[in-house]
């Protein structure tokens, strides 16, 4: 667990500002500390918390807020599928604990390590949970601090920019092959197209799925033609 926590420690620099935003945002729309902590403890998924709070603040229904949050978190379904082979031998209780603390950061770092054959398979679940608990604790404390400090944080500090930067530092090492680059370019591009077309939060899932399809096709094409072949035909499914 300690090794897992250590591997996640550099992420705190991004998670803490992100957590502060998860606390200041509900405060800014009139929610109290318990609401902010409720989102952080029960949902524990930053981007979707902000989106759900945004819906509620515009007088959207609870169901609409939940649907928006589910849509943003649909990628967790993909993460779950991607981690399952590495944790299949672990007891169910540990797999469920790992599920609760699953976020982009520990997913991206662990899946990269395990693909390279790092970490003893017996310790994987605890490694994942250890990292997750560190992020979880920091997330709750930052939410609490953000909610209490609220508007006293300086306006010119662009804390919310830490959010995409966290994803960026995970994205760069994930682009480790030509198909991965195709998946990223199409995934990002299709998401933007989706937003521009008015698909809202659904764009993230549509974009990610487009990227996955494009990356898979690129890999198939490269396998067939060899690494020196022409670029694979891409399909933009947004």
């Amino acid at each position, binding site marked *: 667990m300690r090794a897992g926590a250590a591997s996640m420690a550099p*992420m705190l620099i991004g998670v803490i500002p992100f957590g502060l935003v998860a606390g200041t945002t509900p405060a800014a729309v009139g929610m109290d500390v318990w609401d902010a902590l409720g*989102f952080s403890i029960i949902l*524990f998924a930053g981007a979707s918390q902000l989106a759900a709070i945004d819906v509620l603040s515009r007088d959207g229904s609870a169901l609409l807020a939940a649907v928006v949050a589910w849509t943003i978190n649909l990628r967790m379904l993909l993460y*779950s599928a991607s981690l399952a082979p590495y944790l299949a031998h672990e007891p169910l209780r540990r797999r469920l604990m790992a599920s609760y603390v699953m976020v*982009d950061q520990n997913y991206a770092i662990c*899946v990269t390590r395990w693909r390279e054959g790092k970490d003893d398979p017996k310790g994987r679940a605890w490694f994942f949970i250890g990292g997750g608990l560190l992020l979880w604790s920091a997330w709750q404390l930052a939410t609490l601090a953000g909610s209490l400090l609220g508007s006293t944080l300086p306006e010119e500090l662009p804390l919310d920019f*830490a959010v995409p930067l966290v994803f960026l530092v995970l994205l760069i090492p994930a682009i480790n092959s030509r198909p991965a*680059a195709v998946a990223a370019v199409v995934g990002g591009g299709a998401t933007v197209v989706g937003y521009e077309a008015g698909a809202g939060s659904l764009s993230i899932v549509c974009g*990610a799925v487009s990227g996955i399809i494009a990356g898979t096709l690129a890999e198939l094409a490269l396998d067939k033609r060899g690494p020196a072949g022409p670029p694979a035909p891409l399909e933009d499914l947004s």
Partner: protein
Amino acid sequence: MNRTWTAIVLAGIGTFTMRASFLAMAHKLSEVPPWAERILRQIPPAALAALVVPALVRPHGEFDLTQWRLVAGLIAGLVAWRTKNVALTLVLGVGILMLLQQF
């Protein structure tokens, strides 16, 4: 239960279900076939790019390539790529954006 807490509980149950989905059934999965492995490999780059790119090219809700977040994001991306240093990337990224916003 008020609207906020109804949303929290609904969103939370659904999100946990998605997180646990395949992990809960993992013991029933036998070897992952190569074609599935191929698809699973594409998830990290595609999903993360779907989160990053819109924040850089349409930070204020419309497509706009002439704003500082894109510049700061590209510099941060370069730093992440060359140094692989998470802390440096995040501090520089937010710092550069703060500086640029003064103009």
